């Protein structure tokens, strides 16, 4: 519930800012993507312009490393409407100049560029070249049915109506997502270590309350998934799989909390799921047994399927990569989809707001009901996706750990069932 209320507040602020100007410049797509994507600063709760600054770490084109606060890249502009006295706040990107060894480096968060919302290094153009680029942009804009982003010219970035040559820096910034990642790591470490502390202090005393729930989860995954599938090898792979489960679960749930420690759409970011899937891929293949490789390169099928034309081999090798890819995309799509639906439902209120008071009333009620439902569903999905990721990872690893034929068929069926 709290999450929902905060979601509403959070989304309401920029919309109100837009509405005050009398024209509907509410860009739904922009708002949705901003919520789903990464950022260099972290929104201060209930404010849509002020950001908690985070360190930006970039490598310029000539190999120099720079680290500065993300606050230097944005500026809050307060506009006061003289007629009504209302103040509106805008967040505006500014060029951050750093002088080093007699050379000046310019950095900016690109807006009109191919690298939108990323830190790029700018190089001022000679006047003729600048005019030429601008002409191209204008020509693109003048085309009938041109999109708002049509003024982007590849390799160039526009800031305050001036085009610069841009260089996408090598970016190791501690962005909002990276920060959320660290927070998740701390939370998971704290959680597990508190359990360890409990066991070392209290021994065999049965855990109660929060610790009981934590142990329930650990036991659910360890006994229900890992031990059942990997049997005697459970202990070897349990640390990886349990870490996966708790890390994903924490990131998922943290993503559903809208204000500061949460709100980063981590598991709905393909980079994060890609790393997780890659790690499972490594665990599966690097530690795979002989039988697993034999099944790939010389499977137990009629000879004509594998000899002159290596049909089965191609399928199996393809399968090695599709399995983790499915893991990656499943988690990413589920979590991102959940976030997207919630934010879209909330945005409906502001879309319908254009049709007057009755439409607002109706859409608020409907949106709130649907959003409550979706957020509740997302909590469930957070758990299910963490579980499914762990379950499938376990099965992939188990398949690579087999020595004989006896269990293979059963495992394949299980995987097919879950994937369906």
């Amino acid at each position, binding site marked *: 519930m709290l999450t929902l209320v905060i979601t509403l507040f959070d989304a309401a602020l920029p919309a109100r800012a837009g509405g005050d100007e009398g024209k509907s410049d509410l860009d739904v797509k922009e708002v949705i993507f901003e919520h789903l994507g990464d950022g260099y600063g972290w929104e201060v709760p209930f404010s849509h312009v002020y950001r908690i600054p985070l360190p930006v770490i970039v490598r310029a084109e000539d190999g120099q490393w720079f680290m500065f606060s993300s606050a230097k890249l944005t500026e809050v502009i307060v506009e006061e409407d003289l007629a009504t006295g209302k103040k509106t706040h805008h967040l505006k990107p500014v060029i951050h100049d750093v002088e080093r060894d007699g050379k000046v480096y310019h950095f900016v968060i690109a807006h009109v560029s191919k690298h939108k919302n990323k830190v790029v290094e700018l190089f001022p153009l000679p006047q003729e070249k600048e005019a030429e680029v601008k002409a191209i942009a204008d020509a693109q804009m003048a085309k009938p049915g041109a999109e708002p982003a049509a003024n982007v010219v590849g390799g160039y970035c526009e800031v305050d109506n001036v085009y610069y040559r841009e260089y996408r820096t090598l970016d190791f910034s501690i962005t909002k997502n*990276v920060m959320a990642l660290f927070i998740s*790591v701390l939370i998971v470490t704290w959680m597990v270590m508190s359990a360890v502390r409990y066991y070392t202090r209290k021994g065999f005393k049965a855990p109660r309350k929060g610790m009981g729930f934590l*142990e329930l989860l650990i036991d659910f995954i360890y006994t229900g998934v890992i031990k059942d599938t990997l049997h005697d090898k459970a202990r070897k792979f*349990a640390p990886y799989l349990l*870490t996966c489960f708790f890390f994903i679960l924490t990131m998922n749930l943290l993503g559903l909390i809208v204000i500061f420690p949460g709100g980063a759409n981590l598991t709905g970011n393909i*980079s994060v799921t890609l790393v997780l899937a890659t790690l499972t891929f490594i665990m599966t293949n690097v530690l795979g047994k002989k039988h697993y490789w034999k099944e790939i390169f010389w499977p137990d099928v009629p000879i004509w399927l594998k000899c002159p034309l290596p049909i089965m081999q191609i399928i199996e090798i393809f399968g090695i990569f599709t399995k983790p890819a499915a893991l990656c995309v499943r988690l990413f799509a589920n979590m991102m989809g959940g976030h997207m639906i919630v934010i879209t439902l909330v945005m409906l209120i502001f879309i319908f707001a254009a049709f007057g008071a009755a439409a607002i009333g109706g859409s608020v009620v409907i949106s709130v009901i649907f959003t409550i439902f979706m957020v509740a569903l997302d909590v469930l999905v957070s758990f299910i996706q963490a579980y499914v990721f762990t379950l499938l990872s376990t099965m992939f690893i188990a398949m690579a750990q087999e020595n004989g034929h006896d269990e293979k068929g059963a495992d394949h069926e299980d995987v097919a069932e879950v994937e369906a």
Partner: protein
Amino acid sequence: MELFTPDFGLVFWMFVAFIILFFILAKWGWPIILKNIDSRADNIDRGVEYARQAKEQLDSARDEAKKYIDEAQKRQAEMLNEVSKMRSQLVEDAKADAAREAKKVIDAANLAIEQSRKKAELEFKNEVSKFSLEIAEKMLRTQLKSDKAQTDLVNKMLDEIEKN
């Protein structure tokens, strides 16, 4: 499209963060927890088994105790029975003895009485016969004072003998 392109910086940090987390937890976290969960589960299993056995033992002990008590009660009843039987036997015996003794005493007494009675009778007879002899002597003396009387008597007696 921005959403579907992995960001290099984030991939890097994610990898670093996950590896660090994994090593911390794999070294100091999970093994301890899993060992504890497993050994506690074993412990609980053992405890349950122990309790079951203890209950079984308790039950059998209770049965045994009941058996002992029952037996003791039976023996007590038997003993009481025996005692009462013995007592009545004793009483009976004593009664019989007493009766026999009494009879003996009575018999002896009877015998003594009989003897003394016979003796008294005898004495009495002797006494009586002595008296009657004396009386008869006196009578004879008076009756046979005359000679005639004496001759009459002798005659009479001779008659009697003759008749016989």
